[in-house]
């Protein structure tokens, strides 16, 4: 290289650096929003059918609106897209009457109709949508389960040919043929060896179902379809799906303004479900035109809620702007709102205290005791319960199958001390599995902390002072502070009962599969109710419930849960649930530990914010008193 290059090098380096600096400091500053809040982790999606979390819920509830919306204080249904509904005499048919002035945010302001709801709910159920909340409908709507999981022989079906434009996109559909399912020819079900992994088994099952041959009678002619004819017989017609005819599903638009839902059995909490975001409508035209994820992009998305998405920056912010086409736009006070994807709760609190944000949920537990004194602290018992699962299939030297031992375990835990001295974020010691505070429900309680009684029970069971019991292992997932709680509880058992306790911490994914396979003695768990009703909790422990995961079976309990599902009288229904919980709290396949508390910090000039058990705070109900805000800012400046 020539010497000139060498002598120019420093200047070149400096020029490069200067250019870099100029680029790095060139910002386009955003005009501030009227209201800014911390929304926790980045939302997975804003498609109502694809998500499960609460940060997602806050955004989707601002963008879309369902049949009803919750009163921010009482959570009772208020009119939204539906004005009212009628229930049939057997409490199984709901007919919703929709308002005529609900509009989509597209250019023409297309009205939101019953057809939008019917289409959106079927979309939620469609097996390829992959919604983890589809169970909300499959549990209670007629034939919803069958639509999702596949028809039986003799059912009217719709065959979707494999001619979609984009094979991964369930909407828009390929050509649909209506017919009647004559037969399904299945090869013998694959058998599994003892060494097959779970994943391997599932894969074999999948390959097996792909080779099913469906014979469907269409317009008087029998035609044969298969999802993968190339593996079976190339002469078969290739299809994408064979699903139950949608007319059979209990979801129907009677006309533009009447939406009818038929339920399997009376479901008193059904109207509450309609307030929940998975059941919000999405606009068919928009979804079909742009596909996923195109339709949720800021330039395409069409919404029917109080807000529209102005823009979205990953891991940064979503800017919401008031939707002028919203039917109740006159009562929506906040014009522009920013949702910040702040992951660290400490950072969220810093930004709140410094005044950059007006609302932050879930401040770090370590400072809750200090924050509790402030008047901008909102704390409320939540529908989330922390409990320990006991593997009741453990026996002999780990006699967890013995109910006396389980009762002793429960009575030896000083839950009050755990909450007051260790957790210190306002958690409440729990004696029932259903958290307190559900309207009209009296939880059944297990016994209180009582060391003497616990020791006595253990002796009665034949293990005085814990003699004859091998070391019991507590399993927990490694995130958060579950380890310290586990050690506290293990310590209680060691000191009070003389048990030997060991601990095992597993990473989330491994932990879940271990619990599922009953590969534990005792495991930490948590559960959040999906709707304000005991069913969402007690349903878990029916004998063959997927989430039971304790090995506990009780036919009496199953019968009561089933009876509660059929019961139409609300009070009697609650009593049945109570009776079921009495069994659960007596047998204790799970030990309730504490119920969580929801904490929000909200600036005093923000109005319309109420603490409630489901932690729902619709943006459309909030408003800001500007003079109060100015006074507040002035005061904090002086300080």
């Amino acid at each position, binding site marked *: 290289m020539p010497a000139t290059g060498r002598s120019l090098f420093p200047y070149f380096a400096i020029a490069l650096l200067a250019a870099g600096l100029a680029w790095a400091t060139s910002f386009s500053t955003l005009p501030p929003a009227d209201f800014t809040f911390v929304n926790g982790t980045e939302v997975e999606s804003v498609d109502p059918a694809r998500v499960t979390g609460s940060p997602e819920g806050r955004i989707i509830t601002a963008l879309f609106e369902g049949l009803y919306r919750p009163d921010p204080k009482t959570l009772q249904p208020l009119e939204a897209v539906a004005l009212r509904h009628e229930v049939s005499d057997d409490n199984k048919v709901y007919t919703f009457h929709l308002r005529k002035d609900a509009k989509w945010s597209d250019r023409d302001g297309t009205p939101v109709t019953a057809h939008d709801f019917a289409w959106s709910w079927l979309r939620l159920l469609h097996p390829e949508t992959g919604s983890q909340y589809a169970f909300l409908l499959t549990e209670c709507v007629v034939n919803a389960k069958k639509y999702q999981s596949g028809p039986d022989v003799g059912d009217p079906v719709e065959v979707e040919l494999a001619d979609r434009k984009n094979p991964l996109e369930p909407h828009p559909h390929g050509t649909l043929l209506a017919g009647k399912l004559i037969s399904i020819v299945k090869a013998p079900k694959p058998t599994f060896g003892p060494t097959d992994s779970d994943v391997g088994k599932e894969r074999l099952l999948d390959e097996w179902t792909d080779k099913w041959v469906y014979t469907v009678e269409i317009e008087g002619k029998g035609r044969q379809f298969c999802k993968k004819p190339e593996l079976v017989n190339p002469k078969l017609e290739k299809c994408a799906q064979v699903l139950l005819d949608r007319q059979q599903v209990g979801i129907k638009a009677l006309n533009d303004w009447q939406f009818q839902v038929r339920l399997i059995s009376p479901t008193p909490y059904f109207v509450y479900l309609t307030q929940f975001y998975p059941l919000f409508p999405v606009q068919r035209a928009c979804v079909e035109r742009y596909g996923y994820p195109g339709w949720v992009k800021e330039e395409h998305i069409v919404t029917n809620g109080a807000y529209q998405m102005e823009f979205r920056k990953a891991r940064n912010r979503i800017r919401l702007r008031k939707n002028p086409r919203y039917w109740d736009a006159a009562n929506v006070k906040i014009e522009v709102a920013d949702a910040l994807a702040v992951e660290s709760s400490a950072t969220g609190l810093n*930004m709140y205290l410094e005044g950059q944000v007006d609302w932050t949920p879930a401040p770090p537990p370590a400072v809750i005791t200090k924050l509790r004194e402030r008047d901008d602290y909102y704390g409320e018992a939540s529908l989330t319960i922390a409990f320990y699962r006991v593997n009741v299939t453990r026996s002999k030297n780990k006699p967890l199958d013995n109910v006396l031992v389980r009762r002793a375990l429960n009575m030896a835990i000083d839950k009050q001390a755990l909450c007051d001295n260790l957790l210190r974020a306002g958690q409440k010691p729990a004696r029932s599995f259903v958290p307190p505070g559900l309207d009209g429900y009296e939880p059944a309680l297990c016994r209180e902390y009582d060391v003497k009684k616990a020791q006595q029970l253990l002796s009665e069971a034949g293990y005085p002072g814990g003699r004859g019991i091998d070391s019991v292992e507590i399993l927990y997932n490694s995130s958060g502070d579950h380890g310290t709680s586990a050690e506290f509880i293990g310590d209680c058992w060691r000191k009070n009962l003389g048990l030997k306790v060991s601990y095992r911490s597993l990473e989330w994914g491994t932990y*879940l599969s271990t619990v599922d396979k009953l590969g534990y003695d005792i495991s930490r768990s948590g559960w959040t109710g999906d709707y304000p009703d005991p069913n969402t909790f007690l349903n878990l422990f029916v004998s063959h419930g997927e989430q039971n995961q304790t090995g506990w079976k009780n036919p009496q309990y199953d019968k009561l849960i089933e009876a509660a599902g059929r019961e139409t009288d609300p009070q009697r229904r609650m009593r049945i649930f109570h009776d079921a919980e009495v069994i659960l709290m007596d047998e204790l396949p799970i030990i309730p530990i504490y119920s969580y508390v929801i904490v929000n910090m909200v600036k005093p000039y923000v109005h319309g914010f109420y603490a409630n058990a489901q932690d729902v705070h619709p943006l459309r109900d909030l408003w800001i008193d500007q003079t109060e805000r100015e006074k507040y800012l002035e005061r904090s400046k002086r300080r």
Partner: protein
Amino acid sequence: MISFLVRRTAWMVVTLWIVFTASFLLMRAVPGGPFSQERKVDRDVRRNLEKRYKLDQPLYRQYWTNLVDTVRYRDLGPSMKLKDYTVNEIIAQGFPVSASLGILALSLALAVGLTSGTVAALRRQRLLDVTVMGIATVGIAVPNFWLAGVSIVLFVFVWPLLPAAGWGSPAQLVLPVVCLAAPYAAYIARLTRTGMLDVLSQDYIRTAQAKGLAPHRIVIHHALRGAVLPVVSFLGPAVAAILTGSLVIEQIFFLPGLGRAFISAALQRDYPVAMGLVLIYTIILYVMNMVVDISYRVLDPRVKLS
């Protein structure tokens, strides 16, 4: 020179392929998957999710389609966790943030490090030298989350001069840039001092002094050029690390950069995003090392590229 570039580029392709393969296998060897969660997913539902992300195919097929998509279409596919985004979009949104933060921090680190290192070398064994090197040692030792925490307490709450967090205005940049730059500045100061001391004892410097050149001319025109060589070789990996984002700083100061994306992708088993970021990091690291080698040649005539 040309043959050097060609050879290096060829090696980069090989390296990228090895990194791709190793990351692909390692990610899938870890238990758990992107769809594990407490509430169990229906078999149909899980299966369709897997189909969407092609996780239902045998491993070798996944590997092959992944490789082909990445190479041919430069498309890393959709993210499995931020479902509305593709990996390319996530990188396109996050990289400018991490990069501007990195450039600012690096410039600050260079300015502070070079000056203080040079001054320390010239005042060797005196109070100034000891003080500067003492601070530098502390700067290397102190973890940046601690530094960030302390500076937030001081400059946000005790003296409310700066915003606590966020991205979008110059004031919001001050704390993260300083916190990110501190350890680099400290390291550069130490390297400069060592390099400077080494060079100042060389014959050509004595010649310059004998010629009667002014001391500042000797230092700036003759000594510094040789003294920065260790700094230049440190800059290669440093630039790659700093440009691809810092988890701690981005987390604490709520910056939408790549550091946060990287860690959450790894923890949540978002395979495509993690893969994309590993590849980006490899490319930047490789290119920076190449640039360092070339600038060595420019700075020091004794070095030959081979």
